[in-house]
């Protein structure tokens, strides 16, 4: 599909002549602190950045195109590969969007399990963020401590669904499995252990002189700029706008749960860091509330909607018609109603939105994945100028971008 005469190297149009004493540096795409495949073309005046052009697309897999040629259930494992640090959040957002389209609701036990997984995933994601961010800035030991806690959380994930990174633990209409025996106790132990650990990370970093010097007043995103760039999640709350979809436009079980939304009015990387630390505590608080909720639920795990969702295994093996229906749903796929939905959830990175347009066929007509990191990368071109080269690493780290969801 390519024009033969058009296949030229792209760097030909960048000149390296020094007539204005600036230098062009290619930051990435293989830079260890570029968090994936970010190529940043920086124009430097001495050590100061005067122009920054983020170049993305090195991880583009055409997920939206793939989605148009898959049935809905087939696409669910693909969503894992968007924000692979928090795979369950992606699964949950997609499942919720399709459920809205179908007009069904997951049973309560499934919803409790999903919320547990999503919040556990939020902790995993924030720990990963803290680990890599601290490593970028130069705090090696924080990296190791965070990864230790993250491993324990991933063990919990593994105990539930067998996978550690790409879980696919959520299904359209519920969850496939109940929690294994002893999982709740393990979760409680994990939460109890996490709180002092978070305090330890804060002890290592919050008042650390180097950490403060590297983060304070670096990467200041004003509220106006954050709004204009469509920022969401901690990047928005770090700019003094209290907007968390779990609180403001609640979905699932969140109206029943009690938690606080941390906001920072400093607008800099340090403020965002404080928000992330507090969010981990809040997620632990949510998990602690979910444990008694789980015990009060009945055992149903998948929504009852024979037109769209396969019946439970036991019924498939005993009822002929259910088995036939299951066969049709697996081979042809469900046929959702005609229409469109946009469902946004609060993923660890920000507002994760799924726009689904259905024409009534088993294949979605169009799926648009609204990944928060896309705009958090775009903002770099306005944010980086006037910063020092060393601050570039801090800013990229504090924005918490993951390339799986930027390029999709």
């Amino acid at each position: 599909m390519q024009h033969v005469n058009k296949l030229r190297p792209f760097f030909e149009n960048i000149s390296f002549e020094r007539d204005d004493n600036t230098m062009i540096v290619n930051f990435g795409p293989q830079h260890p602190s570029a968090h994936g495949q970010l190529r940043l073309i920086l124009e430097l005046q001495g050590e100061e950045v005067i122009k920054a052009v983020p170049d993305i697309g090195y991880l583009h897999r055409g997920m939206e195109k793939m989605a148009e040629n898959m049935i809905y259930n087939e696409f669910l494992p693909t969503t894992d590969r968007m924000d692979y640090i928090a795979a369950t959040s992606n699964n949950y957002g997609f499942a919720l969007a399709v459920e809205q389209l179908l007009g069904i609701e997951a049973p309560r036990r499934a919803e409790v399990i999903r919320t547990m997984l999503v919040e556990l995933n939020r902790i995993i994601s924030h720990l990963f963020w803290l680990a890599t961010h601290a490593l970028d800035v130069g705090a090696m030991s924080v990296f190791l401590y965070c990864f230790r806690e993250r491993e324990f959380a991933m063990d919990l994930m593994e105990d539930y669904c067998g996978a550690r990174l790409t879980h696919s633990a959520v299904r359209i209409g519920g969850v496939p499995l109940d929690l294994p025996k002893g999982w709740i106790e393990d979760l409680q132990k994990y939460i109890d252990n996490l709180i002092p650990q978070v305090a330890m990370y804060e002890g290592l970093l919050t008042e650390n002189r180097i950490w403060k010097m590297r983060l304070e007043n670096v990467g200041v995103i004003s509220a106006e700029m954050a709004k204009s760039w469509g920022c969401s999640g901690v990047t928005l709350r770090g700019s003094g706008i209290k907007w968390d979809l779990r609180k403001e436009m609640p979905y699932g079980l969140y109206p029943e749960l009690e938690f606080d939304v941390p906001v920072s009015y400093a607008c800099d990387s340090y403020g965002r860091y404080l928000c992330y630390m507090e969010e981990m505590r809040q997620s632990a608080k949510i998990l602690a509330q979910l444990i008694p909720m789980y015990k009060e639920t009945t055992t149903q795990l998948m929504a009852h909607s024979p037109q769209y969702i396969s019946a439970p295994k036991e019924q498939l093996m005993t009822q002929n018609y259910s088995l036939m229906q299951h066969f049709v749903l697996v081979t042809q796929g469900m046929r959702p109603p005609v229409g469109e939905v946009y469902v946004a959830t609060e993923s660890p990175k920000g507002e994760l939105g799924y726009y689904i347009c259905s024409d009534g066929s088993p294949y979605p007509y169009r799926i648009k994945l609204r990944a928060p990191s896309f705009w958090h990368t775009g903002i770099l071109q306005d944010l980086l100028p006037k910063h020092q080269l060393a601050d570039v690493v801090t800013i990229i780290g504090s924005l918490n971008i993951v390339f799986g969801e930027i390029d999709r």
Partner: protein
Amino acid sequence: MRKYTPKNDVQAKSYYNDRFFVSPQVPKTDVAGDEIFSKDLAVLKSNFEIKDAYIQKGHLVVFIDAKANKQVIKFAKETLGYDFLMELSALDYMATCGGFEVFYEMLSTSKHKRMRIKCFVKEGEAIESVESIFRCADWSEREMFDMFGIKPNNHPYPKRILMPDDWYDYPLRKTYPLQGDEAAQWYEVDKIFGKSARSVIGPEIRDSAAVDRYDTTRFARLGHEVPYGTDIIANGEPESTPLAYQEEGGVRLFGARLVTKFDENESKVLEKRK
């Protein structure tokens, strides 16, 4: 006769469709049912031409004229309080209407409401950029151009964003083929060695898990080992492969000779452990 495949939509299609199946619809409700939305719509209607409006799944969906997109979005931001442009993209309706539907997904943090502004552009028509109102449209419009080929007017940097700059065609169009073509597959071979070398070089092996049991130079034959480089096709499979590995003169351990000589045919399996 060969099966006819339409050229304007080459996407995967369901292989079975019930003739009498009628798809249900996601319910659309009247805007008058929602207090905030009906006020917003009344203000919009007094200023702009609104082609259609309804509420679907809690979203106000408004259809406007594509030429007025910038004014409407500016108005929604400044007057109606829709302060976020969350998403911006297009849908391909070239096969049915000869154009694209562009949608702007907006959010109001003060009203806790979402609105979707939609407009229709014909193929080849450009749309006015809203980058000066929402900075995030900078990248969204680049992506829309990259994926659908809808050019944004007055955009500061109208360039592809995800695909390479020299890429031909727009991937999210329904006409975009799902499989690569032959010329692209043989591109390097044709360019460097010429078309006649195709049969000599052969197609590229893309299966990273491919194993060739007759290739004894690159692959191990676990349990059926032969010396390196043995030509299996010419010499045939070896009749038997000694399964036990043995050092010269038996196995030595801690200076002592543990097994003096091991012969698998003469060895015995004990019934009971000594």
